[in-house]
């Protein structure tokens, strides 16, 4: 039995290998911190291996892993933010925290989008990235984050409105250019 369980585990690990980049991408889009995203994914992997017996339907592996990731992220906030009410997490913005983009890179599209996403309240950021990056259905997102489908829709809508505002309406129109002067 031990051998069988080891082989099953090896099979699970090879599936985890395929999903790991996706988990990392989403963890990074939530935290905007490579080291933290790495830790979250590592923790997710450990919990997945530890609780692999709970996964009854192999087809739901993807959603199950992202649920674990979302729980790890909540645990991280519980331990490091010490918020009285965990619901405050949904509205938490990490603009005052470390963001990888520095001022010089603001004009670049990738940096601008990442910066704009990092300024969204966490609840909106999670829904947006699960839908846009991993193409989860609204029902699946509702299951992963344990929120009603209506909340998924409203958060997504607010997230996109805010992104549009930050990227189109408030975006710098011209980049600072240093002109060469003839002396």
């Amino acid at each position, binding site marked *: 039995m031990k051998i069988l369980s080891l082989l099953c585990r090896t099979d699970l690990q090879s599936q985890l290998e395929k999903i790991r980049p996706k988990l990392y991408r989403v963890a990074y*889009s939530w935290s905007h911190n490579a080291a933290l995203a790495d830790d979250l994914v590592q923790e997710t992997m450990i919990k997945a291996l530890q609780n692999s017996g709970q996964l009854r339907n192999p087809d739901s592996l993807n959603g199950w892993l992202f649920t674990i990731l979302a729980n790890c992220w909540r645990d991280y906030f519980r331990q490091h933010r010490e918020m009285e009410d965990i619901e405050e997490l949904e509205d938490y913005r990490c603009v005052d925290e470390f963001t990888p983009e520095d001022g010089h890179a603001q004009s670049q599209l990738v940096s601008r989008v990442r910066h704009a996403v990092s300024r969204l309240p966490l609840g909106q950021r999670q829904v*947006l990235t699960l839908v846009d990056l991993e193409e989860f259905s609204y029902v699946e997102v509702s299951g992963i984050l344990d929120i009603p489908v209506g909340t998924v829709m409203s958060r997504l809508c607010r997230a996109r409105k805010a992104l549009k505002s930050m990227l189109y309406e408030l975006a710098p129109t011209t980049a600072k250019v240093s002109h060469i002067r003839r002396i």
Partner: protein
Amino acid sequence: MSKISDEYLNAFVDNQLDAEEKGLAFDAIGKDDALRGAVCEVRELKEMVRHAYQDPPGYRRLREKWRSRIQLQSLAACLMLLMVGGLSGWLVSTISESGTGRELGHLFQAISRSDRGSEPSKIMIYVGNANPVRLRAALDESENLLEDYRRDNQKLRLEIIANDSGVDLLRAGVSRYAGRIAMMQARYPNLSLVACTQTLNKLQRRGVAVRLLPNIKTVTSAADEIRKRLKEGWDYVRV
């Protein structure tokens, strides 16, 4: 455009509508230029978000690290399968020469029973936080387990593994539980305490002089140690 809500429009772009709803949405969009523009904007935003996280920092490094581990694990599983195949083949041939298949069943049961009796329980307790309540809970739980197993005359290996601010539990001059830990170490030789070297190096880089309590082991990475232990069949408790 006012007939279609923003939520509905997003659901249309995200392909979340059923066939009938989608038909209605197509009709409305076809008649309304502003709505068509809004759909394009949502699609463009989606693409921009996707593009922004296509290759996040640190991704390649992770991929390579994980792949090399998986290859080793797969190799180990294959080797084990070969060994088990060989061993069971040998057993079958030996027993079929001397007796019946029934004896083979008894033999495997005996092996299984002796394995269960001789193998100690293996539990690791992970501490990643300097919250005094958690640190005390880690020691309380460990002590309870060690005492219970000793009372029942059962074998146990227990490892407390600390990283991040949890290493404060094991630092000389910082830990409030140095005396208690020393007493536990003396009373329970089956207890080991492990600190994460990565965390210690981080502290040293910040200019913090790090000294550990006596008889504390170190490992390169707590996360790797936990993964290794899980593969070895250890139980994992996060405090």
